[in-house]
C-alpha cells in the first residue's frame, strides 16, 4: 500500500525519539557551582571520613545550599559562583593538609536519571568560565640538559679511571680532549660502555686526541618525546594539586601541551604553579675561600662557583651538587620554630648521597640553592628571540650539625614561597622548561552571559522558523516543525552522550542547523506541490516528492558534511566544537526530515483517499 510505513519503521522512529528525549532530559535541570572534597593520595574519600568532612563543612558556615556524599567524594553545592569561590578558600583552610578541595559544576539531574549514567551536555570554558593555557615545551633546553648530563657523566667516569681530560660542550657535540692516543683508547671504551648508542668519533687535535660524542637522530627524538611526555605527566600532577575537577591536560602537536582548568578564576596563580620550573639543589660551601675576592676578580677558584644569597652577598659553592630536585620524592610545607619551612624526603640514592656527605662534612656549611628557569628576549643577528636563562639563588646556608639522610627541613622562604615550592617538589619537576603561547581566561559572569545569549538566539531563531514554516506550508509545515523540534532533541541528546564540550560557536552551530534543517522539508514539499500541479493524485505526489527530493537532499548534505569534517580536522578548540555540531546536525537532520516527517505524514495521510493536501 502506498505511503504506509511498516510497523518496524514506526517502532524504530518511536524508540529513537523516546531515547533521545530521555538522554536530553538532564539538560533541563541545569547545574550548580560546587566544591568537591577528596583525599589527596587516593583521589577518593571513604564513607567514614566523609561524615567527618561533612561535619566540618557544616560548622565552617560557608553558605552551601546542598551537601552530600557521592561516588567517593563529598560534594557541597552553592547558589552562585562568588559564594563557591569564597567557600573554596575557607574550606581549604578549615580542612588543612591531605584534602583536595576542587571547583566543580554539579548537575541537578534527578537520581533516577543520574543512575542511568545520563548527564547534561558538558560546557566549554567560554560557557562555564575557566582558564585555557597552551604551553610550548622548550625542546632545545631539553636536549641541552641531556648533553650537560653526558658531559658531567664522561668527566666523572674518566676521573674515576684517572685519565686526564678536558670535557666541554660544543654546540650539540660533547668534546672530550685527551693527552695522547693511549688515553684516548681507554676513554673511547669507557664512554662507549657508558652509552653504546652514541655516535662516537676520534679526531687528532693540535695537542693529543679528541673524542666527539653526538646523539643520534633517534636519541634526539626519544629525548624530545620523553621531555614532552614527562612534562605532560608533571603538569597533570600540578593540576591535581591545584584542585580542579575535570581538567584537560593533553599533548597538542609536536611540542605543545594544552591545559584547561574549568572554573578557575585566578589565571595568575594557576600559571605560577603550572609554569614554574623551580627546584632545589644542595651544595657544599667552598670553605676557606674568599667570596668577595672572587666576585671582584670575576673568577671563582677551581671546583667552585660563585652564587648570590638573598641578601645579595656573594657565596662560593662547590661545583658538584650533592642532591638535585629530581631526587626529591615528597615535600610539604610546615613550620620550624615559627618560621615557614619545607619538609622534604629524598629517594634512596639521594638519601645515600646526603648521608655520606653529611657524615664526611660535619660542622661544615651546606647551601640550599633555589633554581628557576626563566625566559628572556634578546636580540641576536637582528632577530628577537627568546632564550632560557637559569636563575639560581642561595636561599639558606647552614652548618651541618648532625648526620641526616633522606628526611629533613629547609627554611629561608616566606610562606607563599614555601607552599608553592612544596607543591612543585611534590608534583615533580618539568623535564624541560615550558612557556605560555596562548591564554584564554573567561570570567564566570561572561560564561553565564554567553549561555543566556546562546539560549535566546536558539529560542528566537527556532520560533521564527517554526512560525514561518507553519504559515507557508500549513499542515505539512507543522509536521516539519515537529521534525525540527525532534531534530533539536536528538542533537542535544547526542551532544550529552559525547565527551566534547559545547562552546558558544557550538551553540551557533545548533542555531544554524535549525535554519538549514528545514531545507530538506522545503525540498520535499516543493516537489510535492510540483507533482500536485502536474495533476498527480495526492498520494502519488507525496510518494514522488519524497522519492525525487532524496537525491538532492543527500548530495547537498554530503558537501556540507565535507566542510564540517575539514573544519574538524584543521580547527582547534571552539572551532572543532562548531564542526562537531555541524556534522552531527547533518545526521540528525537527514533522520528527522526524511524519516520522522515521513512517518508522521504516512500515519496521518497514508492509505486513504484524499482530495487535497494541506501543503
Amino acid at each position, binding site marked *: 500500500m502506498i505511503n504506509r510505513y511498516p510497523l518496524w519503521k514506526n517502532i524504530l522512529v518511536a524508540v529513537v525519539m523516546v531515547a533521545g528525549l530521555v538522554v536530553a532530559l538532564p539538560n533541563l535541570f541545569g547545574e550548580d557551582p560546587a566544591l568537591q572534597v577528596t583525599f589527596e593520595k587516593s583521589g577518593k574519600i571513604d564513607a567514614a571520613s566523609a561524615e567527618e568532612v561533612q561535619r566540618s563543612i557544616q560548622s565552617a558556615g560557608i553558605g552551601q545550599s546542598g551537601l552530600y556524599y557521592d561516588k567517593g567524594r563529598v560534594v557541597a553545592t552553592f547558589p552562585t559562583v562568588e559564594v563557591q569561590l569564597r567557600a573554596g578558600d575557607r574550606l581549604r583552610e578549615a580542612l588543612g593538609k591531605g584534602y583536595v578541595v576542587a571547583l566543580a559544576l554539579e548537575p541537578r539531574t534527578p537520581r533516577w536519571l543520574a543512575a542511568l549514567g545520563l548527564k547534561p551536555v558538558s560546557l566549554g570554558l567560554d560557557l562555564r568560565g575557566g582558564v585555557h593555557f597552551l604551553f610550548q615545551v622548550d625542546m632545545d633546553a631539553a636536549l641541552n640538559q641531556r648533553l650537560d648530563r653526558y658531559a658531567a657523566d664522561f668527566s666523572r667516569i674518566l676521573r674515576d679511571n684517572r685519565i686526564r681530560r678536558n670535557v666541554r660542550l660544543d654546540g650539540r657535540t660533547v668534546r672530550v680532549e685527551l693527552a695522547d692516543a693511549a688515553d684516548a683508547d681507554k676513554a673511547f671504551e669507557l664512554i662507549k660502555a657508558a652509552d653504546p648508542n652514541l655516535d662516537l668519533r676520534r679526531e687528532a687535535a693540535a695537542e693529543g686526541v679528541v673524542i666527539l660524542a653526538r646523539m643520534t637522530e633517534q636519541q634526539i627524538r626519544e629525548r624530545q618525546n620523553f621531555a614532552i611526555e614527562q612534562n605532560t605527566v608533571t603538569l597533570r600532577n600540578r593540576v591535581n594539586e591545584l584542585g580542579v575537577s575535570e581538567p584537560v591536560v593533553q599533548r597538542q602537536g609536536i611540542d605543545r601541551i594544552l591545559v584547561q582548568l574549568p572554573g578557575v578564576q585566578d*589565571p595568575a596563580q594557576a600559571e605560577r604553579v603550572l609554569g614554574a620550573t623551580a627546584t632545589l639543589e644542595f651544595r657544599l660551601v667552598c670553605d676557606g675561600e674568599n667570596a668577595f675576592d672572587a666576585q671582584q676578580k670575576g673568577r671563582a677558584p677551581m671546583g667552585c662557583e660563585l652564587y648570590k644569597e638573598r641578601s645579595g652577598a656573594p657565596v662560593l659553592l662547590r661545583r658538584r651538587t650533592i642532591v638535585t630536585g629530581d631526587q626529591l620524592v615528597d615535600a610539604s610545607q610546615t613550620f620550624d620554630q615559627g618560621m615557614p619551612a619545607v619538609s622534604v624526603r629524598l629517594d634512596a640514592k639521594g638519601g645515600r648521597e646526603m648521608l655520606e656527605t653529611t657524615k664526611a662534612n660535619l660542622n661544615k656549611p651546606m647551601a640550599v640553592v633555589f633554581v628557576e628557569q626563566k625566559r628572556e*628576549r634578546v636580540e641576536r643577528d637582528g632577530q628577537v628571540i627568546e632564550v632560557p636563562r637559569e636563575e639560581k639563588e642561595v636561599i639558606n646556608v647552614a652548618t651541618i650539625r648532625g648526620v641526616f639522610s633522606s628526611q629533613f627541613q629547609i627554611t629561608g622562604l616566606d610562606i607563599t614561597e614555601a607552599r608553592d615550592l612544596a607543591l612543585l617538589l611534590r608534583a615533580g619537576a618539568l623535564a624541560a622548561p615550558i612557556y605560555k603561547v596562548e591564554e584564554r581566561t573567561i570570567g564566570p559572569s561572561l560564561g553565564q552571559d554567553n549561555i543566556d545569549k546562546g539560549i535566546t538566539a536558539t529560542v528566537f531563531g527556532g520560533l521564527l522558523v517554526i512560525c514561518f514554516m507553519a504559515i507557508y506550508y500549513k499542515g505539512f509545515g507543522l509536521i516539519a516543525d515537529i521534525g525540527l523540534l525532534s531534530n533539536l532533541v536528538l542533537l542535544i541528546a547526542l551532544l550529552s552522550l559525547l565527551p566534547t564540550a559545547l562552546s558558544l560557536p557550538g551553540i551557533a552551530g545548533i542555531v544554524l542547523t535549525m535554519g538549514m534543517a528545514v531545507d530538506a522539508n522545503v525540498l520535499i514539499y516543493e516537489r510535492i506541490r510540483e507533482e500536485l500541479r502536474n495533476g498527480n493524485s495526492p498520494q502519488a505526489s507525496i510518494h514522488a516528492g519524497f522519492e525525487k527530493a532524496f537525491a538532492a537532499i543527500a548530495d547537498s548534505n554530503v558537501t556540507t558534511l565535507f566542510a564540517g569534517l575539514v*573544519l574538524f580536522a584543521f580547527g582547534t578548540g571552539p572551532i572543532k566544537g562548531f564542526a562537531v555540531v555541524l556534522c552531527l546536525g547533518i545526521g540528525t537532520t537527514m533522520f528527522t526530515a526524511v524519516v520522522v516527517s515521513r512517518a508522521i505524514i504516512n500515519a496521518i495521510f497514508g492509505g486513504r483517499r484524499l482530495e487535497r493536501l494541506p501543503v
Partner: protein
Amino acid sequence: MEFFRKKTNIDFMGKSTLTTVLSLVMFSLSIGSFMVRGLNLGIDFTGGVLVEVSFPQAADLTAVRSQLQGLGFGEAQVQNIGSARDVLIRLPPREQADSGRLGQEIIAGLQKASPGVSLRRIEFVGPQVGKDLTQGGILAMVVCLVIIGIYIMIRFQWKFAIGAIVGVIHDPIITLGVFSEFGIPFDLSVIAAVLAITGYSLNDTIVIFDRMRENLRRARGVGSVPEIMNRSINDTLSRTLMTHFTTSLVVVSLLVFGGETLRSFSIALMIGILICTYSSIYCAGSTALYLKLTAADFAPVKKEKGEIDALP
C-alpha cells in the same frame, strides 16, 4: 501560502553576460580591497593581548586610559563593548619578555585603582601560535575546495565541478572583501563561518545542478541547453529563496542575540548567505555554459560492446 502561484519563467541565463561582468567587478573590488586595506585581523592571527573587564557602574574610559598609561600600557586601545559598563582593552604584540603576563598585570592594576572591577576574559596569543592558526586556516580552505571538487566530479561532471568551484571561490572571496572594506574584525570564528558558507553555498548549487541533470536527461534534445538550465533554476527557485530565508532568520537571530563574541561570525554568515543566493542562481550555471555544457554530457552511457569495439 506560496511565493509563486504560477510557475515562474524568468530568463536567468539570458542575463549571464551581465551577471558575469557583475561578478568579475565584485571579485576584483574584493581582491583590491584585500590588497590595499587588508583584513582587520584579530589577535588570533596577529598575536597580542586582549582584556575584557566589567565595571560596577558605567566605565570612565578616559580614566581607564590614564590608569593604563600609569601601568606602562600607553599603547593600549580602550573601548566599550556591549554595554557602558564593559570595557575591552587591546594590546598589540610586544617584543618583550613575558608578554603572556601582561593581561594578568592589567587586571591586577585596574582592580587596585577601582576595586569593583571584575574580570570578564583575558586572551593572550603568542606570535608563533598566530602564524600557525593562519596557516591552518588557509590549509583548511584549500583542502575543503579540493575535496568538494573531487566529489562533484564523481557525482556529476567536470564542467559542473568547475562551475561549482567557481561559485565556491566566488562567495568566500567576496565575503572577505566586505570584511576588509568595512574593517569588520576578522577572528578565528570567521574562518569557521566562511567554511560553513562554502558548504552551504555548494549545497544550493548542487540542488540546482541536480535538477539540471534530471531535466537534461529527460529533455533528449528538445530545447537548448540554456533553456533547460533556465527551466531548472525556475523549478528550484522557490526552494532556493525559502531555504535562504529560513537560514537568514536564524542568522539574524544570532546577530541580534548572540552577543559580541559571535558578532563577526554572524556577519560573515549573513553576507555569505546573501552572496550565495545570487551565485548559486547565476554563477555556477553560467560557468558550466561557458565550458560548453551539452545535453550529451548527461546522455545515459550506452554500454553496447559491439559498438565500442567497432570504433577505430
